[in-house]
């Protein structure tokens, strides 16, 4: 389902040298498998998700998602592939402020397929417990509610892979659990592979497979 082979990513530094972030010999995630990635701040977790999603390209190596080698695709194809196959939940500010909860979900659909399925969008929002908030703009929703809309949106296109970057970071413990349950249950129901980045041991402990990025990664960096 997801395969990373010999993937390296670095960023240029102002002094002309490069800051090496990722050097991963291999990472595999199976069909419908759920993986939790942990790691200290700044170790490159977000960078890893960007590389998997094709938002940024690695310096070298192969990234394969759903049997497609996205590192070989051009940017437009990667955008299209991501829209159709990968759901992404960010840490914060997932939603577009000008659009209601329902429209945010529909937007995800229209960028992917060009057509929207309102009943599925409503169904997903109902599932995340926001049946009554369809027309609400993000500013009228709490952070936890916004994150739930983001989860609904990430699921809208029936992706093969869901990437969640600390989706519970700004949410209190009670709502944190709600979101984790939502992610875990939906992914297993719909057989969606999940890569979840979290700092919270309580969250990580609920999953079978937990990796520390430092262990996957060959880049030795002092904090």
């Amino acid at each position, binding site marked *: 389902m997801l395969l990373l082979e010999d993937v390296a990513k670095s960023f240029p530094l102002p002094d002309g040298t490069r800051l090496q972030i990722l050097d991963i010999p291999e990472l595999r995630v199976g069909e419908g498998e759920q993986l939790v990635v942990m790691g200290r701040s700044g170790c490159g977790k*977000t*960078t890893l998700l*960007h590389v998997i*999603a094709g*938002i*940024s390209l690695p310096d070298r190596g192969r990234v394969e998602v759903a049997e497609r080698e996205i590192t070989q695709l051009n*940017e*437009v194809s990667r*955008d*299209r592939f*991501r*829209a*159709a196959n990968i759901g*992404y939940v*960010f840490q*914060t*500010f*997932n*939603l*577009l*402020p*000008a*659009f209601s909860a329902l*429209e945010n979900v*529909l*937007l*995800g659909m*229209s*960028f*992917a397929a060009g057509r*929207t399925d309102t009943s599925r969008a409503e169904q997903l929002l109902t599932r995340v417990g926001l049946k009554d908030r369809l027309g609400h703009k993000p500013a009228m929703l709490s952070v936890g509610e916004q994150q739930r809309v983001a989860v609904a*949106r990430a699921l809208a296109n029936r992706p093969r892979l869901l990437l969640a970057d600390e989706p519970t970071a700004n949410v209190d413990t009670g709502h944190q659990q709600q979101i984790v349950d939502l992610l875990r249950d939906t992914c297993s129901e719909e057989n969606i592979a999940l890569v979840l980045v979290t700092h919270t041991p309580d969250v990580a402990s609920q999953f079978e497979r937990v990796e520390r990025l430092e262990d996957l990664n060959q880049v030795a960096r002092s904090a």
Partner: protein
Amino acid sequence: MSLLRIAWRSLVERRLSSFLTGLSIALGAALVVAVLVIFSVIERSFSQAAHGYSIIVGAKGGRTELVLNTVFHLGRPIENIPWSFYKEFSEGRFSRAVKVAIPYCLGDNYKGYRVVGTTPELFSELEYAPGRKYEFHDGRNFATDGFYEGVVGYLVARRTGLKVGDTFAPTHGITTEEGQGHTHDEFRVVGILAPTGTPNDRALFVNMEGFFLLEGHAKGSPQPQGPDGSEAEESDEAETRAESNDGQAGSAGVSNESNAAVGDHQNETSAADAHSGHQGHTHNREPLPEDQREVTCVLVRVTDPILGTHLPNVINEGPVAQAVSPLRVTQELINTIFQPIRWLLLVLTTLVIIVAGVGMMVAIYNTMSERRREIAVMRALGASRRTILMIVLCESVMLAVLGGAAGVLLGHGLIRVANPFVVAMTGVSIGLLEFDILEGLLIPGLVILAAVVGYLPAMSAYRTDVARVLSAAP
């Protein structure tokens, strides 16, 4: 969700900025509309001014001067042509080709408004605009035998307060400023013309017969302020005349003043004016003998267009007079005077719109920093760079089109409000939905402008580094 809808939402999200930007475009567009409409009014009122006749015949000299004097009641005074030449139109060799020939005798003013000596046929035979006959706001046309009757243009009546039954005494000279004019005998106002929107609203028309009998108007009459001219005598005369005027108009008046009337034609450039004897003035109810008559020009309506093109050639080849087409001269005036101004103003207003467009570019560009995150999220959701580019361009184009449309409506609305004043001043009424052809270019032009100025912010959006924006702390 369509790009237009996404763009629209984005505009609504920043409604104040969008409104102000759209407003600046709207004001620019309203200015363009105003310029276009104002000039079309000017042009129409100008080209309408000479309706009803196709040829003006006057002394040889400046064509423009002749038209200005005759049609617009403007310009320096011009020389006269002999009565005999006028007769060629009414009963002589040209009469077969002529349907109507209206003589004009110029040279006097009343409080700065020109007084035209003419015949009643001016109002009974000619239209002032296609399908529009002269009408009287009050009273009636002057009568052929009412030597001292006159008709007042609508604006003159409004501004001078002249009413039917009032009398007025023309002053010699074509403007009050000329100062050298002396006051003539009085004419009685028998009618106030309804507004026509032509320069005739700004003139007074008197019976040519009375005009001829005014002192100094007979051909070759002596100068009043010449070596022996005296102002005192002048005003005495005026009084006596006024008295007699109140009496029986049309009764066979006998000249009770045998002294030669003193005339003032010193401002006339005609050096050819032979100084000869001159018979009487106001009190005289006898028409001026034909050999003492002159007219300034003749308005000619021809019987058919073919003769109409031939006639001016014949006249122009002769030694006496010239024939000009008022329409052509008017068009030349419009083309040489108004069109350059119109284009200049259009260029200026276009610059105003371009400045507004640059303002729009800055406004949208400034929103880009706060929208980075949104753009990155849309990209992460699968929107391509091109899609983002198109969304921003759509915003720019929508703002410009909506602003432009609002401006067009605003412009026409303002013109609607101004319409009564325009009608009062020019007589031309502008409909709310009267569009100039160039207005059709306004919206497409705005679309192009918006696409050009929208390109910079759109490119900035296009270049958004999604990974960097998404990993930066929001």
